[in-house]
């Protein structure tokens, strides 16, 4: 099929235990390199038992494919053609590379060679056949492998014999009570089906079919106790053999399919629960913990992982140990760290049962996506039964899912951070705009007044000069307050405030704040109400003093001269309560909570009016909240405003005096 656009070709090569497969893989790799295509190595695993040599051959071929740059994939299915065609369709494969098919693989598999069936099932995909240079070898191998594969096992033989003996017994019973001989034939067919159900391998089907005919012949046809029989029975024997063979084949297939279904269900269940748990995991560590537990549950091995930080592997692994394999107590983890580091750098398996660092007692694997290794998993694999191909696939699925979850988590965080920084940026821009206006106004006044004084010193009377001096002084003081607030804002970078918490007397803080009051305040009556002079609170004194200064200055700013301002403190449960009260006009109804918003400046004024970017109260709120307290304001009767705030009380363990 011709590919459109810039999409890369995807070549699929089928992996099998066949000795010619290595050659096929090499050729597929060469092809993919020459046309710049992506190479995928597909192994179709079926439910049939494999002997060790075959498993090793598959393993070697998969390794070879990986070394040649292929992406490894395994699918399940009894019929390779359907499985391959399905996979090719789903993952957009454009070419399939096959070795020359060795022929039909089982007695009752769907008809046709793999190639012709693939042609039928996936007509869009180009199929490339690698000529088989090892045909002779292959054929011999096939025979040998058949014998090896269908090895007779003691228990299965015993079971076969027992079932046939039982059938014979029942047969005698039937003939004894005078039932027709045809019933006995049915009993044997039933027996053959039972054999197929309780044993593995087609050889038992054939064997039991043959034996049942012979036994039937021996015991139940005339002449009894002899293999000789009248030609009348030959047809019966033939039909009986055929029916027995057929039904046992069918039974084997049903059994194989049910095993496969069960496996698939288990796999689905494990993957589903893993992905559910991964969804719920809140951060990277939680994701890795879920992965660790699920892997340990699945494999029944102890599992550890090293997280990957900026500089490489985390210094210490996180362990999850189970009793079955005695955990990691006697494993030299520090010594095996090298293997984990290698995995982190190369994103490939290493350790126990691999070629790299094979002396290690754990198998190390990378959790990776998009070429980046997120973590390295280690599985204790030296003292437990080897992990079968099926579990290995599940394990890889879990690792893949874990990698996806980590990446998703990372991207979510990245997005949050960007949103946060965008928000900060907007705030900063807003702040800068307001500040430049608020700085310029008093600076204009200062420089203007100073210029007048410089140039017209002689022409101004005492009173006029004094007014200008006072104005310069007030503006300078006001600027200093603004700078003080701005400095504090820089401390609140990223929404967090570093507090230097100490137990301080509340009265000390109030006194300190009053010492910093600006001169305008002297035109108001300021009263303190501090009944408990031993009231202590946990505070960053510089910040709380600043809060009080801002509140008092605010009261001064919004009240006419001659007003009364009360500063008080008291205890409210386990909080220290501080308040600043004035008898001015208060704030408009319904705006009590808005006054703490940034850039709120009281009654709407013309944009050019001077002073007040509404920074002070917003800062007060930030500081009080950082202390774990609250701040609020209410209008009071008959008129005026009351600001109050709470901060946690400090309990002092009194010294013995």
């Amino acid at each position, binding site marked *: 099929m011709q590919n459109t656009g810039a999409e890369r070709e995807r070549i699929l090569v089928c992996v099998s235990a066949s000795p010619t497969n290595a050659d096929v893989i090499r050729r597929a790799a060469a092809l993919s390199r020459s046309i710049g295509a992506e190479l995928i190595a597909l192994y179709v695993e079926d439910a049939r038992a494999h002997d060790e040599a075959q498993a090793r051959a598959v393993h070697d071929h998969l390794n070879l494919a990986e070394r040649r740059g292929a992406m490894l994939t395994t699918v399940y299915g009894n019929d390779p053609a359907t499985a391959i065609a399905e996979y090719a369709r789903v993952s957009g494969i454009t070419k399939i590379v096959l070795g020359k098919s060795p022929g039909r693989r089982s007695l009752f598999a769907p008809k046709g060679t793999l190639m012709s069936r693939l042609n039928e099932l996936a007509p869009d995909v180009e199929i490339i056949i690698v000529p088989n240079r090892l045909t002779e070898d292959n054929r011999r191998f096939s025979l040998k492998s058949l014998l090896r594969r269908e090895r007779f096992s003691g228990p299965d033989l015993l079971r076969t014999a027992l079932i046939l003996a039982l059938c014979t017994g029942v047969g005698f019973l039937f003939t004894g009570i005078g039932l027709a001989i045809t019933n006995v034939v049915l009993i044997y067919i039933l027996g053959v089906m039972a054999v197929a159900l309780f044993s593995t391998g087609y050889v038992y089907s054939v064997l039991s079919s043959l034996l049942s005919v012979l036994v039937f012949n021996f015991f139940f046809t005339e002449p009894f106790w002899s293999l000789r029989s009248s030609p009348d029975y030959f047809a019966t024997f033939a039909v009986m053999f055929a029916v027995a063979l057929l039904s046992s084949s069918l039974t084997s297939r049903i059994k194989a399919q049910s095993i496969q279904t069960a496996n698939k269900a288990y796999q689905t269940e494990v993957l589903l629960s893993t992905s559910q748990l991964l969804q719920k995991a809140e951060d990277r560590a939680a994701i890795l913990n879920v992965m660790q537990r699920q892997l340990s549950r699945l494999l029944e091995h102890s599992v550890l992982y090293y997280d990957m930080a900026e500089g490489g592997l985390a210094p210490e692994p996180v362990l999850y140990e189970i009793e079955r394999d005695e955990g990691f107590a006697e494993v030299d983890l520090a010594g095996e760290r090298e293997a984990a580091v290698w995995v982190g750098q190369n994103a490939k398996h290493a350790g126990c049962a691999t070629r790299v660092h094979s002396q290690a007692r754990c198998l190390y694997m990378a959790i990776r996506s998009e070429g980046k290794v997120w973590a390295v998993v280690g599985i204790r694999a030296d003292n437990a039964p080897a992990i079968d191909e099926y579990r290995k696939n599940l394990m890889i699925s879990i690792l893949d899912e874990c990698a996806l979850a980590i990446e998703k988590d990372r991207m979510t965080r990245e997005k949050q951070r960007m949103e946060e920084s965008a928000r900060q940026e907007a705030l900063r821009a807003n702040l800068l705009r307001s500040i430049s206006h608020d700085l310029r106004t008093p600076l204009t006044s200062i420089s203007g007044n100073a210029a007048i004084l410089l140039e017209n010193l002689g022409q101004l009377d005492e009173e006029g000069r004094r007014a200008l001096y006072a104005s310069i002084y007030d503006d*300078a003081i006001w600027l*200093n307050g603004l700078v*003080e607030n701005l*400095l504090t804002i820089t401390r609140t970078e990223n929404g967090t405030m570093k507090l*230097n918490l*100490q*137990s*301080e*007397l509340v*009265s*000390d*803080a109030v*006194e*300190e704040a009053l010492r910093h009051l600006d001169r305008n305040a002297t035109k108001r009556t300021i009263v303190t109400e501090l009944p408990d*002079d*031993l009231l*202590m609170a946990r505070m960053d*004194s*510089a910040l709380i*003093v600043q809060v009080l200064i801002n509140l008092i200055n605010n009261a001064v700013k919004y009240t006419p001269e001659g007003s009364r301002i009360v500063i008080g403190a008291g205890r409210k449960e386990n909080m220290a309560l501080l308040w600043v009260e004035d008898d001015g006009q208060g704030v408009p109804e319904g705006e009590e909570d808005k006054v703490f918003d940034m850039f709120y400046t009281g009654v709407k004024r013309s944009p050019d009016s001077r002073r007040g970017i509404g920074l002070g109260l917003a800062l007060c709120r930030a500081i009080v909240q950082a202390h774990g307290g609250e701040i609020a304001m209410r209008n009071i009767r008959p008129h005026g405003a009351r600001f109050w705030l709470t901060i946690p009380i*400090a309990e*002092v*363990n*009194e*010294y013995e*005096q």
Partner: protein
Amino acid sequence: MSNKPMILVVEDDAAIRNLMAVTLDTQGYRYHLARNGAEALIEATTHQPDVMLLDLGLPDMEGVDIIRKVRGWTSLPIIVISARSEDADKVEALDAGADDYLTKPFSVDEMLARLRVALRRVNAEQQAPNRESALYENGSLRIDYAAGCAYMGEQEIHLTPIEYKLLCLLAKNTGKVLTHNYILKEIWGSYTASDVGSLRVFMAMLRKKLQAGDGAQPFIQTHIGIGYRMLRMDRSAEDAP
């Protein structure tokens, strides 16, 4: 040597240096100016100033190092001036041996007030160089070290042992800002964060007892986040330098 006090001003910023020079001049002090740490050390050795006003942000030397060097040979009062409003810097300077601090921007009046406090300490030491021992007098406050009693006017003040120890420590360092750290080390011999709270309570009690008799100006000044200071209540020098 003239009887006018000599002030050494160490400040790298010309405008501030000028402001301070003009202020000192109008108030009848003699002064020397130094622009950096090296000059400061030379001036301090050659002119033997009565008080040193030291800016902490000098181009060539850390202010704290200058304090340590100066403290090597003289106990002249050092008032540090810092643009940084961080308490830690002030505490560091005080612990290194500075007597007092000013935070920029400061008012001229405030600077003069601090100078007076420092000079009063110098005067008190010069008048009674050897009377270290038996009796301490400061305004209406009197401590009889031998008897272990403190009096406000004629009235004895009833103090707990720790309060008495605190009072003596402050009295012996009258005019000097003592950091929490220093006080804790002197009185309790150790420093833990939880002690700071207790110290606040003891000081509050002590202040209350000292104020009960008089009412007007408190003897002990609180410097929140930094420490405490005993002020000298010299009636004659209350208003003028």
